């Protein structure tokens, strides 16, 4: 969790006026999309749906050293909460967290 906090602080410190105005990750997401730095969320969701089963709980966009990462939180059919990290530009799955990740794979 501290990483997220840190990155948010970093983002607020480093990004331009557009992000500061609202200061929310969806505004950053839109700005990044328009700058061509990320793919649309619907593409990421399509990848998630293709690879995993489960109900989407939450989505966040993190930025680490000018690299945007989508963090998708899923509730799997057997009741586990898992987190999936996707590269927001390449749609590659970077990391997974939580038990039951393998069970939730299609």
């Amino acid at each position: 969790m501290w990483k997220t906090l840190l990155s948010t602080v970093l983002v607020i410190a480093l990004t331009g006026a557009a992000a500061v105005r609202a200061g929310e990750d969806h505004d950053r997401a839109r700005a990044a999309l328009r700058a061509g730095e990320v793919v649309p969320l619907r593409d990421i969701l399509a990848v998630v749906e293709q690879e995993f089963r489960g109900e989407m709980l939450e989505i966040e966009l993190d930025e680490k050293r000018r690299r945007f990462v989508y963090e998708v939180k899923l509730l799997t059919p057997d009741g586990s909460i898992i987190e999936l990290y996707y590269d927001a530009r390449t749609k590659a799955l970077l990391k997974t967290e939580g038990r039951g990740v393998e069970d939730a794979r299609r």
Partner: protein
Amino acid sequence: MTRARSLRHRLVLGAAAWIVVALVAGALVITELFRGHLERQVYADLGHHLDQLIAGLEVGPDGTLGLARQLSDPRFRKPYSGLYWQVDGMQQGGILRSRSLWDDMLGLPPDEIERDQAHHHTLSGPADQSLLVLERTVTLPSAQAVRVAVAADAAQVEGVLTAFGRILAVSFAALGLGLLAAAGVQVVLALRPLNALRRRLAEVRDGRSARLAGDFPGEVQPLVDDLNALMEHDAALVERARVQAGNLAHGLKTPLAILANEADALDRKGAHEQAAVLREQVMRMQRMIDYQLAQARAAAAREVPGIRCRLGECVDGLRRALERLHAGRGLLIETDVPDALLFRGEREDCEEILGNLLDNACKWARSRVRLTADSEGDEVRVLIDDDGPGIDAAARAAAFERGRRMDEAVPGSGLGLAIVRDLVELYRGRIALADSPLGGLRVDLRLPAARATEPAVVKPQPARQGGGP
């Protein structure tokens, strides 16, 4: 009853057509009403969200627009959740957006017309959702005008409608089947009098009844009354023809008797030749009258329903008469006729047919004549055997010809068997000649039978005059 002509099929098909049309139309109307109701509910919810959104708008000290507090519905926070809000400036779109819109935004169409009140649009939104949008323009305390919009995914309406439509289809299908079954039952019940009428008509045709009996509904009764009147009229016509034939025969009886007396007178005066000619012609006239009367009776019996006679009684009477007639010859006449056997026709005709055949058998028999009868399906089968010389197979066809006499030595006019043949044909019966097990001729006769279960129809006897066979 063919499919195209059947009243029942037509009525049931008609009922099916209007049931299907009514139910389909009903289902469409109900679905549309329900869709309207659902959309009104969605817009009412959107109205509450819009009010909350407008209440939360505030302009910061630096002039930027912000939201004092998050909207209460968590779906505004979840990306692509299907519930969105957005605030547009007059020049710049998407000043503020709900988190659920994420990297997308609502493309509100430019409209200035209805500035003062909320109105709605249908737009396409994130992830190709179809959105119901409620929007209005407000002027902030800072005199800045903004367009405020909230939107909901129409798929929730469509989802509910789909589920509702499925239930509606199943229940309407069940209702339709029920209505169809009820219509079928109604048609069968309504047409029942017609089936009864058909049965009554069959009874009349089979000779079990003289008229259509029973009460029918008001729509059918006039038809039944007309049919009865028609049948009574026919019967009256036939009856009148018979009475006239009888009267004619009766009227001729006295002149014929006078002529016969004249023949006797001529005989006494010694004019034997003229007397013989006269007597012969009188006898021929008498025979012709008998023959035509028999034909009239048979035609009448075929046309008038409900006529029958008991075969056993008829045969018993004939046997007694023939036993007296042939008393001197020591002839044995055996008869075997079940009591229940009924001939569908006039008793006189029965006597005419069987009398002629029995008389013939007695004339030719050496010592024995036997008559047996039994029922065979719809027919009565009568076998008359004798132990006389019989007829060659080759000569049998000629036996029924009018005026043909098999042996000139045996007295008779030669009309008897011809009358028998005509009568049998009029009654749609059959007659055949064969070898008898007694050694002589066998007559194999089939006549229409009447059923014993129905009460006999009492028929007035017509004025009938003239001699026996």
